């Protein structure tokens, strides 16, 4: 009481907080993506560096210019950094940088700003950006520069620096992704190669183990729902496993399904996006089963070899409705049907 001028602060309870904060959660998601990012750079070299930098840069710039908040810049919450990084990791290595930038601007502006910014974006902005590119440049989005090329740290694939508004020319070897190899040629890739990531594919989808590592870190820090990835992956394995048992000639093994394409990255880092996933426990379960099933349905019977992106976007769209369906009973309210 010696401080005679001391003032008392009046605040309403609670006077303590759990310590969780949007910015720390988002920052840790960025940290969790670093192993995957580093592996992408190791696998694809300079092209990965430039692609990821362009993706993150275009997203940050768009958010800075169009994102509105009464409290000033919204970059500090780290959410758009995640968007940029995730978006970049879903792109094929060697995609022309101008296309990368276009998708980034589209994803953040249309996928986030127009919906009202953080918290109001129905869809995952990274996937909106990717979906736009998939529709606009289907050729470039399915051309896969092979990884681990000898000169990858000093030279770029010819396609990367394609001038804006012109189509890329691929000179090197473009490989088929494991899913495409299965779908179009019925060639099964070994599960060891799949898990470790020594295959063709988008920048960040190749090493399932490193993605899992990042996810486990977030789950351990209670910053990510373990229910969503676990349910999605279980659904995929169960559904595709059942198909494989019925006809192993026509349907891929569940291991190929599990460790290939964007499933790991999508299940752990995109389907778990808090904004686009349901809030109720039951809703989360339904949402995850829907996404897992759609992945198998699209991959198996759809026109494209990969379906994770559309499965998650559809899941995002359904989330609010799922939450309304499974709204938990209020404490002390009569059971449904009794009044």
């Amino acid at each position, binding site marked *: 009481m010696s401080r005679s001028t*001391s003032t008392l602060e009046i605040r309403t309870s609670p006077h303590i907080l*759990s310590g969780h904060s949007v910015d720390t959660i988002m920052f840790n998601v960025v940290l969790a993506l670093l192993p995957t990012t580093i592996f992408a750079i190791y696998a694809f070299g300079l092209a990965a560096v430039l692609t990821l930098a362009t993706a993150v840069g275009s997203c940050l710039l768009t958010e800075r210019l169009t994102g509105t908040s009464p409290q000033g810049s919204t970059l500090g919450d780290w959410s758009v950094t995640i968007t940029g990084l995730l978006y970049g990791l879903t792109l094929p290595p060697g995609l022309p940088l101008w296309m990368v930038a276009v998708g980034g601007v589209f994803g953040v502006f249309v996928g986030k700003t127009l919906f009202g910014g953080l918290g109001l974006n129905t869809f995952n902005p990274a996937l909106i950006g990717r979906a736009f590119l998939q529709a606009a440049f289907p050729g470039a989005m399915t051309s896969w520069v092979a990884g681990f090329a000898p000169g990858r740290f000093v030279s770029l694939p010819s396609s990367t620096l394609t001038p804006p508004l012109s189509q890329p020319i691929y000179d090197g070897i473009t490989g088929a992704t494991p899913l495409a190899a299965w779908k179009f040629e019925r060639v099964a890739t070994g599960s060891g190669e799949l898990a470790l990531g020594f295959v063709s594919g988008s920048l960040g989808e190749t090493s399932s183990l490193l993605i899992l590592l990042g996810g486990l870190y977030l789950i351990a820090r209670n910053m990510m729902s373990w229910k969503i990835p676990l349910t999605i992956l279980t659904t995929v394995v169960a559904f595709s496993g059942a198909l494989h048992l019925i006809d192993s000639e026509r349907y891929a093994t569940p291991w190929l399904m599990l460790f290939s394409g964007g499933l790991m990255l999508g299940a752990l880092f995109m389907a778990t996006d808090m904004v686009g996933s349901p809030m109720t426990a039951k809703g989360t379960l339904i949402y995850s089963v829907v996404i897992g099933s759609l992945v198998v349905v699209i991959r198996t019977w759809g026109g494209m070899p990969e379906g994770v992106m559309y499965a998650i976007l559809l899941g995002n769209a359904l989330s609010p409705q799922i939450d309304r369906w499974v709204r938990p009973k209020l404490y*002390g309210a009569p059971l449904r049907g009794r009044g």
Partner: protein
Amino acid sequence: MKLLGLKTFRHGVHPPESKSATSGLAIRQFPFAPVLVIPLVQHMGRPSIAEVQEGQEVTRGQRIARADGFMSVSMHAPASGIVRRIALTPSISGRMVPGVFLEPYPGSTQEIADGTPCPLETATAEQIVAAIQDAGIVGLGGAAFPTHVKLAIPEGKSVDTLIINGVECEPYLTTDHRVMLEQRDDLFMGIRYLLKVTGAARAIVGIEANKPDAAEHLRAGLPDDLPATVEVLSVKYPQGAEKMLITALLGREVPSGGLPLDVHALCVNVATTAEIGRLLPRGRGIQERVITVSGPAVERKGNYRIPIGTPLRFLLEEVGVADDVNRVFLGGPMMGAAASTLDIPITKGTSGVVAFTDREAASTHRHVYPCIRCGYCLDACPIFLDPSQLGILALNGEHGRMAEEQHLMDCFECGCCSFVCPSHIPLVQQFRIAKRTVRKAKSAS
């Protein structure tokens, strides 16, 4: 439901307990302040009517105000001394309320005056209820609801289980813990009175697993003829809330808008029960209560038996506070109200005084982000509300819709949603404001 073998309720949060600094400290008598201020409103209900005049001498324990009708209780002199004036005093709610300013005699032996005893064996249920009202007993857990009102069981309602609430789930607070350890006989006596009034067949004392010594102590001393058991619950906030405790112990849900009586239960706090057992046999009234004084800014933390009416300023000077004391609140950190001035007196409902330094206070000054629909608040709310949606409606001023569509009035402001919100949205604060406007609108129509 059960968790790891211990009973509990669904949802809720686990704030740091912060109880170790005081849980091992025995209750100590607190000195008299130079002037005690006894507000005539210390309870929920009508203000008491003063029975003393300015300049009048009073004896410690003497009744100084009588109940104004049923929704009111008596007040007793916390010290022998002289009534200096009867005037307005600031209160924790921010309003000025009438109070009796009492100056204790420095040289007095401070003997407590006995009143008309209410013997357990011979008193009827009605006589016990009246004695509880006359002893000025209110819920000492913090709500300060007149206990006798709870005990007046209306025609057609019955109680099968009396629940004695020794949960004390608020961080920092250890008063109930100490009372269970040090006033076991008072507690058992109080349970006997309550069983007689309610006609309940049994009593259950609910204690959280972080107070194993209290549970053990009570179990060891349970008289054979007392139909009471001690149940240890897993540690979770807000288990001390009446509804949560009933659900944890009995598996019954109190209906929305209803009372524990609707599920044949009645809940009384352990400190309140112990006071009933201590005061009624001698016809005395409440003139002091046990309060935990704790928090990082407090130098001599402890559990003190403090005279009602002790000014907060005197209390903090006696225990010593850090130079950078920043926030002082009455009750625990989850639901306690911050004091806007140190000139407010301790009342019957004050279970704790917690003082924060700049450092702890600053940890709640956080940037408010938009709701990111993480759903943490849905998993925390013990009432199964949708605080996220309520918060969005509150932001748009849709208070009516909050009540009609989202069950706003079922919220009892435990603070779990605000505690977990990573966007630091002041959810509970918004709900309090909304509840006020809804109540106003209702009473106006």
